């Protein structure tokens, strides 16, 4: 596994091990990796591979006994867990269960209230966060009046308002329909371009990893592979064996191979595949 040793590593995990009381096998087994500041890293793995445990550990929501986690140069310990949390914004899976406030604006303000931000500043930050996720006109709506995708956009606004350096998406789009998923990912991409936030997305949807700089594959609590998306996707047999899917362009390539059509070895995204198909058709 490649180790980043740069000074600008915003997340650094070394030898993290965690075992749930009721389980025999550890949920995380000697996991080490680091993430450079501003990167988009996707952690993939099937259900029960330890992805969510990893996300919870990074935010200090799980009290791991072995290993070390450094977030933005601060070691995660009991004493400075709140300092670490203020640097990380997390979005969880279930849109309903993380909605604390009675209305959209209350929910966005919740984190700021916890940080003891003065009232006037809360107002300004809530306004701008809602504008960034395009939910301003929904500010007085209650959670039961919103769709799943809208609720996740509110959760994202709550995170944006707190101005974290890192956003962790803990399967944040797994309960959304494809449109809601595209909306959330679109907002996050835009934010990242604008603010240079580090994004750690935890998912089992391979289509969500296409915009990642790096993919880390987890299986049974261990990192079994990591690297650029093109490298990971090229090993489609490994992904399928782990119960994961492969991106659409890769599936198309496999289908063409079955019909004895020679395709390029290296991974290409959808646009790359379209270009290649046109080129080979023109040649023929």
């Amino acid at each position, binding site marked *: 596994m490649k180790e980043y040793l740069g000074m600008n590593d915003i997340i650094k995990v070394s030898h993290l091990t965690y075992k749930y009381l009721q389980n025999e096998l550890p949920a995380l087994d000697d996991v080490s990796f680091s993430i450079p500041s501003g990167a988009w890293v996707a952690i993939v793995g099937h259900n029960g591979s330890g992805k969510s445990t990893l996300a919870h550990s990074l935010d200090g*929501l799980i009290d791991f006994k072995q290993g070390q986690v450094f977030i933005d140069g601060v070691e995660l310990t009991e004493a400075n867990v*709140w300092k670490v949390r203020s640097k990380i914004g997390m979005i969880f899976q*279930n849109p309903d269960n993380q909605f604390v406030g*009675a209305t959209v604006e209350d929910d966005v303000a919740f984190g700021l*209230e*916890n940080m003891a931000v003065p009232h006037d500043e809360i107002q300004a930050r809530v306004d701008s966060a809602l504008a960034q996720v395009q939910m301003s006109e929904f500010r007085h709506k*209650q959670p039961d009046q919103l769709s799943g995708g809208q609720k996740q956009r509110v959760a994202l606004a*709550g995170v944006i308002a707190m101005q974290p350096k890192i956003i962790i998406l803990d399967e944040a789009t797994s309960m959304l329909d494809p449109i809601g998923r595209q909306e959330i990912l679109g907002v996050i991409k835009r934010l990242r371009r604008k603010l240079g936030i580090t994004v750690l997305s935890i998912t089992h949807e391979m289509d969500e990893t296409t915009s990642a700089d790096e993919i880390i594959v987890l299986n049974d609590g261990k990192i079994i592979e990591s690297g650029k998306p093109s490298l990971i996707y090229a090993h489609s047999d490994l992904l399928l064996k782990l119960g994961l899917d492969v991106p659409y362009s890769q599936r198309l390539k496999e289908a063409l191979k079955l019909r004895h059509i020679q395709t390029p070895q290296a991974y290409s995204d959808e646009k790359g595949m379209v270009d290649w198909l046109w080129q080979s058709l023109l040649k023929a």
Partner: protein
Amino acid sequence: MNKLLFGRYIPQDSFVHHMDPRAKLVLSFLYVIVIFFANNWWIYLLMTVVALLSIWASKINFKLFVDGILPLIWIIAFTMLIQVLFGTGGHLYWQWGIFSVTSLGILNAAYIFVRFTLIILISTLLTLSTSPIQISDAIESLLKPLEKVHFPVYEVALMLSIALRFVPTLMDETESIMNAQRARGVDFGTGNIVQRIKKIIPILIPLFVSAFNRAEDLATAMEARGYQGGAGRTKYRLLKWGTRDTIATLIYLLMTVVVFALRFC
């Protein structure tokens, strides 16, 4: 199930909606207390006028209030029936064993009807025009003095606001669990009382389990967003006492004075 109005809030741009929730809460309490002093039709007339005036000022569709009363109509009818059948005093119309219908009994039943209806109207007005978070803010603010005796005011207010926020969510979930059980062949509409109670179990158990899961998720999400307890938080919503609150308070105080005058003088 969605007809239930408790905990629902109807946003509007009106006099009542812009009032301080503390004023609304205290005035609703005052109204309910005062109505128990009512003993003649003039008082009921006055209080009905005040209630209708308050509802008119809220710009909320009156049909919603009727919907609020309808589920309780059987309780009201039952209480009235008891009053009619067991009432004593006044002119005796009909008697059979321990049952007797008297003029005073009928009058009391009528009073009870008006009393129930007005109490439901005013409390429905409070919940329809005040968002749950405002109600819990008001309670927090009103209970503030209890902090001196180490009463966990903030925690109680938070629990209340979360409970109210989850009412519609849990209602929707109950509905979908019921539908899922119906799809598996559970018929909720038939059977005797014991059978019907047994049929509640496949709704209750999943609902409890999911409530536990929700609680755990919510606690994690709150912690991840830096919630460390009530101390040292700032507030997004500030309660402000305005002119309309003073006006409303004056109207209700005037009503109270007139009611007491009619009652005791």
